[in-house]
């Protein structure tokens, strides 16, 4: 905004001052209405020319061509190319061409400008590479508890998740994207994503993705991604086709694909689903979603209480909505239904159509000034399951209790509900703090054994846009049994 105002100020100065000063000194050969004044003023306003001497470029009276050339020459010596747009560079080139003879006479070599332009132009076309690396140091209280991954260590250094992304624009309709990921769990490098995107302007103006995709989420705004939560459904690796159609006040998506399970094909399934979202206006939106997971081999979810449940199909339907009271305060929610098809019929003790809902109040920091606020309440019927295995910011060891444990188990024979309060405070461009409190309750006497709370506090420091640090404390505590664990984690993130 400041840049725009500065630009306007410079233009206004030139525009209003021009006739008066030009009339005052008619003997100069570069009159005030010459485009060069405007060009230099604009480049200065954008910060491209920083520190050109006002002794030469007076800016408020006509000059000789040599004076302007001298200003351009001095500007070229200090030009900040990191702030220059291609337009700015073109403008500089135009100035150089206009005053070439004078610059030559002043002994200025302008060839370097061309090489700088070439560097800028490298940004267009070709392969684009980006990625991130993370490293953690962790101090866990229990050697084989919630947080300790290796059982016998309470201090570990880990690389939780590293990415390398490659993108190639093939033409105006086709692009390719691949993402390599190294997961800490199995320490393997895998193709998290590998797909081409094709635009079909003549086929109802749709866009399709073909290949392996791992970033499909239909619950935007319904989970607190800043503190590690994830969408209840989808967000799985799928190999197939995803179709997107954007329209005036909404969008439509559909997918068909296959989930390829690396563990012997037990969980392999064909996915199909569709979503339509309506934005009625800036205040109200609504979405309808359907997602069906059709298992290839009827995997048997191992229920420790009642034995095996051979699943044929897992259907999920949900409705979501959002109400924006203003730019900073919103109310959102979703209501979901599961429908299970089980080989041999549904056991009598099981509800094969359980429901769940959650409701969220999202308040941005601009409203409260000192903090943002996220309040979330969810209630899940017995046997209702999501696709996530917990509400955790810190990674937990497999098989150990974690926040909102059993949220992914269709055999969970008791209702669960949770409260979450999360807040973030952005103190300045460098420092931020965050907190979360999560309280999870399970119904029935057996379920009470799983009741727990989770506390989280952290500090983030943005050293640069590429390098950041985070120090975090996370604690989980059982309500009705004697169990608790906590962890301090120091995370470094480098992205490029």
């Amino acid at each position: 905004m400041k840049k725009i105002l500065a630009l306007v100020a410079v233009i206004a100065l030139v525009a209003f001052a021009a006739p008066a000063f030009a009339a005052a000194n008619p003997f100069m050969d570069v009159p005030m209405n010459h485009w060069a004044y405007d060009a230099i003023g604009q480049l200065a306003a954008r910060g491209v020319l920083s520190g050109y001497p006002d002794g030469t470029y007076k800016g408020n009276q006509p000059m000789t061509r040599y004076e302007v050339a001298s200003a351009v020459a001095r500007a070229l010596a200090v030009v900040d190319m990191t702030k220059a747009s291609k337009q700015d560079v073109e403008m500089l080139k135009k100035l150089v061409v206009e005053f070439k003879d004078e610059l030559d006479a002043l002994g200025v070599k302008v060839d370097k400008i061309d090489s700088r332009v070439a560097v800028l132009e490298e940004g267009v076309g070709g392969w684009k590479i980006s990625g991130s690396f993370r490293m953690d140091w962790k101090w866990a209280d229990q050697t084989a508890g919630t947080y300790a991954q290796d059982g016998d260590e309470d201090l570990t250094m880990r690389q939780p998740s590293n990415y390398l992304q490659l993108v190639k624009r093939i033409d105006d309709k086709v692009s390719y994207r691949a993402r390599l990921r190294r997961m800490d769990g199995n320490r393997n490098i895998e193709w998290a994503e590998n797909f081409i995107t094709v635009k079909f302007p003549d086929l109802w103006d749709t866009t399709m993705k073909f290949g392996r995709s791992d970033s499909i989420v239909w619950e935007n705004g319904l989970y607190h991604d800043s503190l590690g939560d994830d969408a209840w459904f989808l967000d799985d690796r799928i190999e197939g086709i995803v179709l997107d159609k954007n329209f005036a006040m909404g969008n439509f998506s559909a997918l068909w694909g296959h989930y390829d399970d690396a563990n012997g094909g037990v969980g392999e399934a064909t996915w199909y689903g569709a979503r339509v979202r309506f934005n009625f206006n800036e205040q109200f939106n609504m979405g309808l979603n359907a997602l069906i997971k059709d298992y290839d081999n009827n995997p048997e979810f191992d229920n420790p209480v009642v034995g095996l449940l051979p699943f044929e199909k897992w259907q999920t339907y949900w409705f979501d909505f959002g109400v924006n009271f203003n730019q900073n305060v919103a109310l959102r929610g979703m209501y979901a239904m599961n429908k299970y098809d089980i080989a041999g019929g549904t056991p009598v003790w099981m509800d094969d159509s359980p429901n769940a809902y959650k409701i969220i109040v999202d308040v941005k920091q601009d409203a409260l000034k000192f903090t943002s606020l996220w309040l979330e309440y969810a209630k899940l019927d017995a046997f209702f399951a999501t696709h996530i295995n917990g509400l955790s910011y810190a990674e937990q060891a497999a098989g150990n209790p974690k926040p909102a444990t059993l949220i992914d188990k269709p055999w969970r024979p008791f209702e669960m509900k949770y409260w979450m309060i999360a807040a973030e405070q952005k103190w300045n461009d460098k420092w931020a703090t965050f907190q979360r409190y999560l309280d999870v309750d399970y119904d029935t006497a057996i379920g009470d054994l799983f009741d727990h709370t989770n506390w989280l506090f952290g500090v983030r420091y943005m050293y640069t846009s590429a390098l950041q640090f985070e120090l975090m404390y996370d604690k989980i505590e059982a309500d009705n049994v004697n169990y608790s664990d906590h962890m301090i984690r120091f995370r470094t993130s480098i992205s490029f």
Partner: protein
Amino acid sequence: MEGKRITRLIGLSVLLFGMLFTAVPGFAADYSKTLAKWTRQQTFREPGAIGPLEMKVTYYSAEYVQALIETEAEKNLWTKDEKENYTYQLLKTLNMDEMIPIHVEFRNYGPSMHMAPFDEQVEIWIGRKKFKPVDYDKRFNFRLQGDRDGMIYFPRYDEKGKPLLEGVSSVKLSFNSGIHMYIRGSSVDFIWDVHKDKPESLYAGRAASRLELDRLIKRIEKLNAEKRDLENKLNELNNELSSVNKRVDELQKQ
């Protein structure tokens, strides 16, 4: 224990809501509320990532521009003339008489973005039609990590000169989700209810008259050019007609 925890949660919620509703009225001060009304912000972060991607976009409605002018006028204690001049220059610079300007600000503290060519990544939906940018800050075409902001311009009139926003209640600005690794979903959408705009005060006074004059002069130039084209075509037709007639006369005489 259960009762105690519920009491604690209710108490905490009441406290937080209390903070919310006592803080909101404080926010409603002078023009800042109007400026905020036309600004939208979305933040994206991959689970576990530290640095986010923040996108802040501002629709330059008449009401927003008016608030911007009033803010500057108050700050600088401008006279009426100075304010008129500033209004005229600002509207000219923003090209408000021909384009819909939208300011976009990226704050990317995650993996770098590569959006070239940028006009393939963004579109605006006005009514049932979508439009590509007519112009944009070309720096968006280059690798982006850190902070960068700039303007995007969309057409305000269709080919026949009809205002695109006429009778439209909302517009939607859509970014392709492929612009950043952290964005999950089909697109990033920002919506404004443009029927709530208040153009009356901005498009009144001397600045508006000067702008209208500029527009009319441009229109005259365009119409004159069209007229010249048509006259040239007419001349060509007349010439061809006369040559054909001449030939017909020659043939009839034979």
